[in-house]
């Protein structure tokens, strides 16, 4: 049996992401769909594997987050509980569907997990997705450790059902990838014995937001928000702990840092706390009660001043004189994840505490230690592809001026010397869209790199655009049979499949080039001379072409040979 399913009414040592999975299956979730992305990936990975044990659970890796959102939206419209999860930038991709879901609403409880990444541990930005809740006008929970991730997931499903709205559950890397004690309940194995189908009850004047419908639905949505706000005020995991005249309002992983810091400073009985987990709609009444009882309110939250702005507006609206301190005073930055020491220092500064010293060793060896940037694995086929294409372009004498648009995956590491073959990147699929622009704006040669999974995610439609609008560049698809970066999730072109999807078809990438009538070659990057001969004619011609470098990820190959 899957380890997350084991045990009932006991303490388990779970990752934040695993805790969400456990919370979801305890809540009878039936349908899941997701595109992997760190730090959210373990949610999908575990749901995918769990299908072997739970006949009543369906999960699929969708080609991108938008498709995943549409899948769970429809499943929920049929009355089934559903979940999707994504990294923060994944919600950008899914946002079109997400925004409309707030209008047409859901039937079965629908939880949308966004795993944000302050400090950009594995992302191209550190956007604060709490603003998505406000933008879409859907309720939001913020977890601060694995146990709250679990508990909030269980709260989210019934709330979603009650208000017929998706619930945004927000974590950050430090919550998703923290492993802590979770007091679990029991998994309803009875319920999962068979997959129970729902019914879609037609209601086009609800589910089809043509302008007349949308206008009506927006009003309805705003009415729901008022009622949701009342719930947020009395939500059991929104805690106002009245103590002294100094107060702290906090959400997310910083909750832990604040509690530990107060203990370290001996202030645990003196400082009032407003710990928030239901943060959209903002619990105004509760916050007002807190603000009226303290003289100073220090706001501790990573990234954007979301709570802070809400509190300032509230204080203004109600004419409160409470001193509000936070990002505006630069007590804490708007970038990177916090550290406990940083929060403790900020607290000392905010409250003007005297005589507190921080002992930090006066040693620093960082200047002489070798850097360890992440690198392509030994034997990785991507390195071979990069090298041979670089050589051909060098032999043609155009390597230095060639522009290398790149994309999101292990192969972005082509940015490192000695390859230096990553010049431009925006987001998933931009390696195919951006070259269309380069083609218009410059005479430099463009050779773009994209992985197989990223190609299916967001590379298909820009390739059609390139063909239709007559753009000239070469696209190298690094087809390594898997979604490697995030832990070897399936990809439509893969030939070696997980037993769970053994009967799914293979969609070879060269057939797509063929269908679009784009010249292509398929190379084996390990056969360097043969491959160089194949790619040279394409690189020499000034036309749209596709090179498919086909060789399995070295780790995936080892893993699948071991049969795990």
């Amino acid at each position, binding site marked *: 049996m899957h380890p997350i399913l084991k045990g009932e009414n006991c303490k388990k040592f779970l990752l934040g992401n695993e805790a969400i999975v456990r919370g979801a299956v305890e809540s009878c979730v039936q349908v899941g769909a997701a595109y992997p992305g*760190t730090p959210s990936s373990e949610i999908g990975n575990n749901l995918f594997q769990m299908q072997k044990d739970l006949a009543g659970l369906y999960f699929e890796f969708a080609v991108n987050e938008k498709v995943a959102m549409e899948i769970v939206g429809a499943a929920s419209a049929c009355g089934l509980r559903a979940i999707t999860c994504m990294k923060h930038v994944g919600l950008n991709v899914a946002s079109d569907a997400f925004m409309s879901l707030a209008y047409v609403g859901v039937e079965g409880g629908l939880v949308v997990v966004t795993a944000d990444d302050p400090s950009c541990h*594995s992302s191209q930005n550190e956007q604060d997705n709490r603003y998505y809740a406000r933008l879409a006008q859907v309720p939001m929970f913020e977890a601060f450790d694995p146990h709250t991730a679990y508990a909030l997931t269980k709260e989210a499903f019934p709330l979603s059902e009650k208000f017929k709205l998706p619930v945004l559950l927000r974590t950050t890397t430090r919550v998703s990838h923290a492993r802590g004690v979770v007091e679990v309940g029991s998994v309803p194995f009875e319920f999962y014995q068979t997959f129970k189908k729902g019914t879609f009850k037609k209601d086009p004047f609800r589910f089809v937001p043509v302008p007349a419908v949308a206008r009506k639905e927006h009003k309805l949505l705003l009415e729901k928000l008022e009622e949701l706000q009342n719930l947020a005020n009395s939500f059991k995991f929104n805690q106002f702990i009245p103590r002294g005249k100094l107060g702290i309002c906090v959400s997310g992983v910083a909750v832990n*840092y604040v509690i530990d810091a107060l*203990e370290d400073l001996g202030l645990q009985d003196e400082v009032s706390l407003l710990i928030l987990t239901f943060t959209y709609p903002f619990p105004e009444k509760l916050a007002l009660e807190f603000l009226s009882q303290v003289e100073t309110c220090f706001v501790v939250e990573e990234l954007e001043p979301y709570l802070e702005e809400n509190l300032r507006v509230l204080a203004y609206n109600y004419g409160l004189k409470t001193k509000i301190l936070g990002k505006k005073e630069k007590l804490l930055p708007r970038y990177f994840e916090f550290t*406990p020491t940083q929060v403790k220092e900020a607290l000392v500064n905010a409250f003007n505490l005297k005589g507190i010293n921080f002992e930090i060793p006066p040693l620093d060896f960082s200047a002489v230690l070798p850097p360890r940037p992440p*690198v392509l694995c030994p034997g990785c086929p991507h390195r071979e592809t990069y090298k041979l294409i670089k050589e051909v372009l060098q032999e043609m004498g155009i390597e230095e001026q060639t522009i290398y648009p790149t994309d999101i995956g292990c192969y972005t590491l082509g940015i490192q010397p000695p390859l230096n073959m990553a010049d431009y990147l925006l987001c998933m699929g931009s390696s195919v869209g951006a070259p269309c622009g380069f083609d218009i704006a410059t005479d430099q040669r463009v050779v773009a790199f994209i992985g197989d999974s990223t190609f299916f995610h967001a590379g298909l439609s820009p390739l059609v655009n390139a063909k239709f609008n007559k753009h000239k560049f070469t696209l190298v698809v690094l087809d390594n049979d898997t979604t490697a970066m995030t832990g070897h999730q399936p990809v439509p072109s893969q030939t070696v499949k997980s037993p769970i999807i053994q009967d799914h078809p293979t969609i070879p990438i060269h057939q797509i080039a063929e269908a679009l009538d784009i010249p292509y070659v398929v190379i084996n990057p390990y056969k360097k001379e043969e491959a160089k001969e194949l790619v040279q004619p394409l690189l020499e011609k000034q036309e749209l072409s596709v090179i498919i470098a086909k060789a399995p990820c070295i780790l995936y190959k080892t893993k699948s040979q071991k049969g795990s």
Partner: protein
Amino acid sequence: MKKIKGLVVGVGGQGIILFTRVLGEACIKADIPVIVSEVHGMAQRGGVVESSICLFGKSPYTSEGEANFIVAFEPAEALRFVKRAKKETKFVISKDPILPLAVKEGVATYPDLNPLFEEMTSYFKHVFFIPGEDLAKEAGSTKALNMVMLGAATSLGVFPLGRDALVEAMLELLPEKLHEVNLKAFDLGFNYVKSIL
């Protein structure tokens, strides 16, 4: 109980996650509050890996001046994280360097660590070096370095748990075919530290 904060550092692929898993499971059995952080994603590809441990507290992050103990699977990585320590911090360091690819390719250098450790040990009083690779090999696999280090740290008394509690958690977590090697690795690390204390 007073908070105990620690840090396990090394290089991606050294098996640090298992170290913290075993410790965490042992803590749960003993009803000790525990939270750790793990590194996933790009950093696993040969990058610097750190895992924070917090017992009797809430924060899954051990930051500057906070660590009660630091377990380093690689010597240069121990030096990289000295700012996380305080004067009385206990260090357990596997003495075998792992050269970054950039060093192997000749575009970066791996420094002579001796003078750096001299400077370090003149500030910190509790620094213990372990022949990690030799002990792991003796146990039967270089992959067992993580259990050598766990045994060594346990022996040093940095956890509020003894050998038996950790061994029990380890055996429960690992498939049976790996029991012998890992148990041996744990005890080799445990006994090595005992012999030098």
